[in-house]
């Protein structure tokens, strides 16, 4: 009996020693690989009862993040979630009313304005900030870094691509999609003439900051033009590429070739992808790459698996942008707000880019971090919806939208964009010519400046 006890004790002691050694080794290896030991795993010194973020809705990701943060750090996270369109209003009214807001998010269009109005906290002095900045992709840097200072971490990044419906292309007996804009028209005219599609092109031309304006920016950039030069002078005058692009674009609507779907003037990115999924159009674009995760999702699209990605004509240049999360100046405690910000746009306690990885796998969103974009997460995560090497090839030819239209850094960009939406829709519906439209937009720059 006593021997048994001794044997058991000896065995237990051995196990304890072995276990201790194992733990020590595990600890050492963790430090060596820089996971747990990184600044993201170190708690701030101050104490806070709770934190909050004000964001726009996206599935249940924010509920999951809040839960994970609370489990990791013991701090409760409140969330205020509104729709994408309502978010700036929600955020600004909360800020103006003096409420506490630790972390929020922004489109690249609102962000310079939020920075200018003192809503955004600079982050350079935060632990690990420099490492994040080093890992930014080129166009994320152009959004998140303002005057050399780190002002936010990326939510997601996207590049503008074309989509086409393979069955329809085969029916038309075209062996490949268009390589030039002339060929695009030619294929669409044939599709209409043969009765394969009444409206072969679905443009993304609904009212918005990236929708209608983004489509015009992309095609103008692809054809070698831009909207403002580096000195801020407009490039919309007679003979400009932007003006000629608009003439060409308007011609695809009612008064010209009549190949553009009239629904184009209403659709946004998601609704456009859903409409394309009905299988009535040959082409959709150019717009955010991740629309493919709707068009090729069997639960949302009757033509799932038959929508392919396509690059732009010529040298294939296109545009891209990144949306960001940031710490507001109305935060409770900057260190804790930074900690929460990292759960949204950086690394979680385990040292992983958890949010970026989940968004890539669940929603086909691109990341603002080079390491994530180069990882297998993208290659495997995007694969169910599209040709990943082709998308990444297009990605490499992307320029930040701010290079094409530098007014996005100006406070008058929003009121001017209102006018872009109005005048261009008037042009596309045949109420005014492209020349009148561009002349009005040139005049509209001064009008927009008066509204600031």
């Amino acid at each position, binding site marked *: 009996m006593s021997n048994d006890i001794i044997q058991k004790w000896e065995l237990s002691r051995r196990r304890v020693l072995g276990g201790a050694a194992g733990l020590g080794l595990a600890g050492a290896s963790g430090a060596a690989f820089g996971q747990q030991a990184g600044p993201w795993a170190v708690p701030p010194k101050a104490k806070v009862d709770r934190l909050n973020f004000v964001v726009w809705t996206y599935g249940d990701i924010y509920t999951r993040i809040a839960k994970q943060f609370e489990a990791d750090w013991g701090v409760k996270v409140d969330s205020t979630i509104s729709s994408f369109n309502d978010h*700036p*209003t929600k955020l*600004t*009214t909360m*800020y*103006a009313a*003096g409420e506490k807001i630790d972390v929020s998010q922004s489109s690249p*269009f*609102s962000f310079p*304005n*939020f920075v*200018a*109005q*003192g*809503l955004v906290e600079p982050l350079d002095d935060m632990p690990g900030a420099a490492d994040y900045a080093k890992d930014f992709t080129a166009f994320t840097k152009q959004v998140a870094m303002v005057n050399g200072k780190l002002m936010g971490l990326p939510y997601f990044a996207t590049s503008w691509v074309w989509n086409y419906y393979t069955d329809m292309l085969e029916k038309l007996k075209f062996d490949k999609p268009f390589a030039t804009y002339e060929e695009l028209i030619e294929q669409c005219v044939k599709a209409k003439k043969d009765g394969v599609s009444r409206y072969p092109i679905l443009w993304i031309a*609904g*009212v918005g900051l990236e929708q209608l304006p983004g489509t015009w920016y992309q095609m103008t950039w692809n054809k070698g033009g831009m909207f403002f030069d580096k000195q801020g002078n407009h490039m919309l005058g007679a003979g400009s590429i932007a003006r000629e692009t608009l003439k060409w674009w308007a011609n695809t609507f009612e008064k010209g070739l009549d190949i553009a*779907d*009239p*629904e184009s*003037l*209403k659709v946004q990115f998601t609704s456009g992808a859903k*409409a394309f999924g*009905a299988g*009535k159009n040959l082409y959709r674009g150019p717009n955010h790459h991740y629309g493919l995760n709707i068009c090729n999702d069997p639960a949302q699209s009757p033509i799932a698996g038959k929508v392919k990605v396509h690059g732009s004509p010529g040298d294939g240049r296109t545009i891209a942008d990144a949306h960001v999360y940031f710490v507001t100046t*109305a935060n409770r405690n900057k260190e804790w707000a930074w900690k929460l910000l990292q759960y949204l746009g950086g690394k979680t306690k385990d040292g992983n880019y958890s949010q970026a990885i989940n968004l890539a796998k669940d929603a086909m969103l691109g990341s603002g971090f080079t390491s994530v974009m180069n990882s297998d997460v993208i290659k495997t995560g995007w694969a169910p919806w599209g040709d990943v090497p082709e998308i990444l090839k297009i990605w490499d030819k992307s320029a930040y939208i701010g290079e094409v239209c530098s007014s996005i850094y100006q*406070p*008058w*960009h*929003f*009121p001017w964009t*209102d*006018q872009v*939406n*109005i*005048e261009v*829709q*008037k042009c*596309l*519906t045949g*109420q005014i010519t492209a020349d009148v439209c561009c002349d009005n937009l040139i005049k509209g720059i001064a*009008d927009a400046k*008066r*509204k*600031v």
Partner: protein
Amino acid sequence: MTARRRPWYRREMSAGSFAFFMNVPTLLCLGLVLAYPVIYAGYLSVHKVGLAQLRRGEFAFTGWENYGRVLEDPLFWVALKNTLVFTVITVGSEIVLAVMIALLINQTSVWTSRVTRFLILLPYAIPPIANGLIWSFLYSFQFGFLNRILFSAGLITDPVNWAGNPNTALYAVTVPYIWRTLPFAIILVHAALQGIPKDLYEQAAIDGANAWHRFRHITVPMLRQIVAIILVLRTAFAFAVFEEILAITQGGPGDATWVAAWYSYKIAFAPPNNFGMGSASAYILALMIGVIALVYMRFVYRRVTL
């Protein structure tokens, strides 16, 4: 001998004083809930107010500059024109439809009028933004229910782009708005109809007045006051239409459905968040509604003498 005068607290209150005291609680509530924001918006309208200033509570006085900027803006005039067209169509239609429908459901001899009275209230219970979304689905160009019905009935051969065509978009937005707000007008007219003494109609019938004459010389004069009230209320609300615009067209296509409230919203709540100018445009709108209300009361609202 003169009667001893009662002390003031035991005297019978005059009708005017009684009415005043009965209104005091309501006036206090309205003062707290409405007057403060209205006055504050007026204060903002003569200051430079962006997001940072609003947070700090420090505003630079600008006088009438914000009003000048609004009045100089061509888009404001477009929005105002669209608002006027929208208001004339919706308020005019509501008055006519409300009287017609109220007359129908006032027919107690028809048993279905009781069911209709209940059903007629349903649209009023639908939140405006939900109403806008429902109608945006109905109006969808290729997949909308409305086009499908018209197509099936052989009334159209090609789908109509109701909300996407600049020639039809504003009219398309009026329909859901009328559909949602009409029950309110019907209830008021119906209540007024029930207040008309039945013997007036009986005497007129004995005197040989036909249905049209009874409607023309009894119903219409007796409805004049309630119509004036509906005109004032519905005009004020129609001038401030917002939700249907947000849900269905967002001001487009082009500027076809930019209305005054949408303009104020965009100026104030979209970057660069010019709350001063947004408040000024809202004040201009409020002033116009006030003037229109006065005109209505001057020309439509008359005491009825029979």
